């Protein structure tokens, strides 16, 4: 068994809203081993992005983060800002959905890479430029010299996303968090970026969290999946188990609601209602769940150990 890299326990994020505190993430726990790519899947409001931001120490002002997240045994939650600044871009790095917004439009690509190395590695300009060029090549920007001299607007969307990945990987982070990295890209470019994330794992980053709404993307490149809904974990399993032996009613309903290129005849069964979070202690999915029981409204669903490494948070304990 490979080494434990990230351990998240009882993570909570609450955000101030006009109508009081919103528990964006609640009682979330998972772990990540060296060399693993974990997909976090959910619809809007599921808390998947806030989870990532909490790990990075980037939750919005006024928010409260509780629980624990240890990277190589070191606690991340509640770290002072100065220490987080040293960690971010070095041992934890993040890739965002919109590469256009993530890059500074006024600076050449080369500057945006070398400043990371100057900040974290204190390299001289020549060495930094050399390392940056190598990294651009590693992410498939073959004409790296020209790329270093370019401004973001001179690159295509796919190339810009490769640049943000290169920036994230410069210090060979232990943990790479990618939040919807291919959502803004065309499907052929998406395939290239997903291929890249898969190939660079291990050599350029220790382990990864891929946050997405797209189950198909998870099926293509992740090792394990965490399904979230209304800020809470629903199910956690290896991809093959989740897609073929999913336990949680939400997971199974979500899979039935996908139009499938590989199975056009199988039709599609929508989930009624809309994503949201009912008040009360119970399961947030209950208003839309076809299999809900009486206790779902009042009682927090228990954590079921379905199989080794396969957890489901549901009152229905029987086999599905």
């Amino acid at each position, binding site marked *: 068994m490979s080494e434990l890299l990230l351990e998240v326990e009882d993570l909570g994020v609450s955000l101030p809203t006009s109508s009081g505190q919103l528990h964006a993430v609640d009682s979330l726990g998972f772990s990540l081993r060296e060399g693993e790519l974990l997909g976090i899947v959910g*619809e*809007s409001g599921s808390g998947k992005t806030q989870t990532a931001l909490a790990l990075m120490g980037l939750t919005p002002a006024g928010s409260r983060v509780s629980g624990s997240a240890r990277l190589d045994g070191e606690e991340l939650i509640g770290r002072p800002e100065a220490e987080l600044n040293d960690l971010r871009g070095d041992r934890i790095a993040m890739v965002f959905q919109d590469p256009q917004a993530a890059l500074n439009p006024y600076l050449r690509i080369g500057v945006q890479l070398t400043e990371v190395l100057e900040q974290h590695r204190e390299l001289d300009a020549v060495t930094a430029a050399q390392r940056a060029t190598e990294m651009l090549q590693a992410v*498939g*920007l*073959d*004409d790296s010299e*020209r790329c270093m001299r370019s401004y973001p607007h001179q690159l*295509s*969307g*796919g*190339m810009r996303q*490769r640049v943000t990945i290169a920036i994230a990987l410069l210090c060979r982070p232990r943990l790479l968090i990618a939040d919807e990295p291919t959502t803004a890209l*065309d*499907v*052929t*470019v*998406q*395939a*290239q970026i*997903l*291929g*890249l994330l*898969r*190939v*660079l794992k291990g050599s350029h980053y220790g382990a990864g969290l891929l946050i997405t*709404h*797209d*189950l*198909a*993307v998870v*099926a*293509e*490149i992740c090792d394990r999946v965490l399904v979230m809904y209304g800020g809470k974990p629903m199910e956690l399993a290896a*991809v*093959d188990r989740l*897609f*073929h032996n999913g336990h949680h009613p939400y997971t199974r*309903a*979500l*899979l039935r*609601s*996908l*139009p*499938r*290129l*590989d199975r*056009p005849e199988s039709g*599609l*069964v*929508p*989930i*009624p209602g*809309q*994503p949201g979070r009912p008040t009360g202690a119970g399961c947030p999915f209950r208003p*839309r769940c076809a299999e809900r029981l009486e206790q779902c409204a009042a009682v927090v669903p228990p954590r079921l150990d379905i199989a080794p490494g396969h957890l489901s948070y549901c009152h229905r304990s029987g086999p599905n």
Partner: protein
Amino acid sequence: MSARLVDIRDLVVEYPGGSPRAPRVRAVAGVSLGIDEGVTLGIVGESGSGKSTLARALLGLVDIQSGQVEYGGMPMAAAGRADWRRFRREVQVVFQDPAASLDPRMSVARILAEPLLVHRPELGAGQIREITLARLGNVGLDESHLRRLPRQLSGGECQRVAIARALVLEPRLLICDEPVSALDISIQAQILALLRELQQRLGLTVMFIAHDLSVVRYLCKRVAVMYRGSLVETANADALFRDPQHPYTRALLGSVPVADPRQRRNFAATAATFSAAAAGSGCIYADRCPRAQERCRTESPSLERSGDGDVACFFPGAGGDLADGERQR
């Protein structure tokens, strides 16, 4: 053979370039395409392929450089006021962002009544209410939604209202431009199922523009694939998804992630290159095509019959190439 409702021939649409001296951008570069009555035609392609511009040109919302659009046998270039009025009544659109396409200050009742007030002034208030309620029912909403404003509706509900509005005039042609891509997965499924049901029940002709091939596979009988402003392949959906002829269609299908880890494709980490200067006289796909030969760089292929559909390629069919990301057996 059903009647042809829309006939687009050699359509060219250009936009001004980024600066006064920049060359004009040819968004649609000579597209010929027919839509038969009762058929759901999917238009697929990546960003910048010209699929939305094609729809806008059909709707008369952008100027056409050359070519023509015929609707119901009539060339729209020759259409008079009355013809356009009929066209506006019979052709309805649903856009991607439902919130942006509904007037924020109008109630749902008002949004749904407005097309009727414009196009069917003979109707009384009672009849308008009757039609409005029937259409709301069609899209899975009810009387309780009538007095709400768009901001009091969820994204999925807004899209349902936009669809209901498109239906109140009993259109012959419904144009949907990415109608589900802004929605959550579970809501997307609701809207797709609704569109399929309406299409079957009302016998609508639909032009469905989407970048998501799984969605097109679910809804469409016929599919047209666009690349850089041109049509590269059209075919019946079954044939196109089973046996794509154009190398670009093959690459596109090979790039779609499948929600089954047992069918992993092992996407290659292909390198990116700065896009080459616009291809001269050759095939628009030649610079990316694994099959490109000398001929492809000098001559431009036109749409020719191949298999069940039409394809613009000198070397169509399964070929021997494995386009990037194509399924590994």
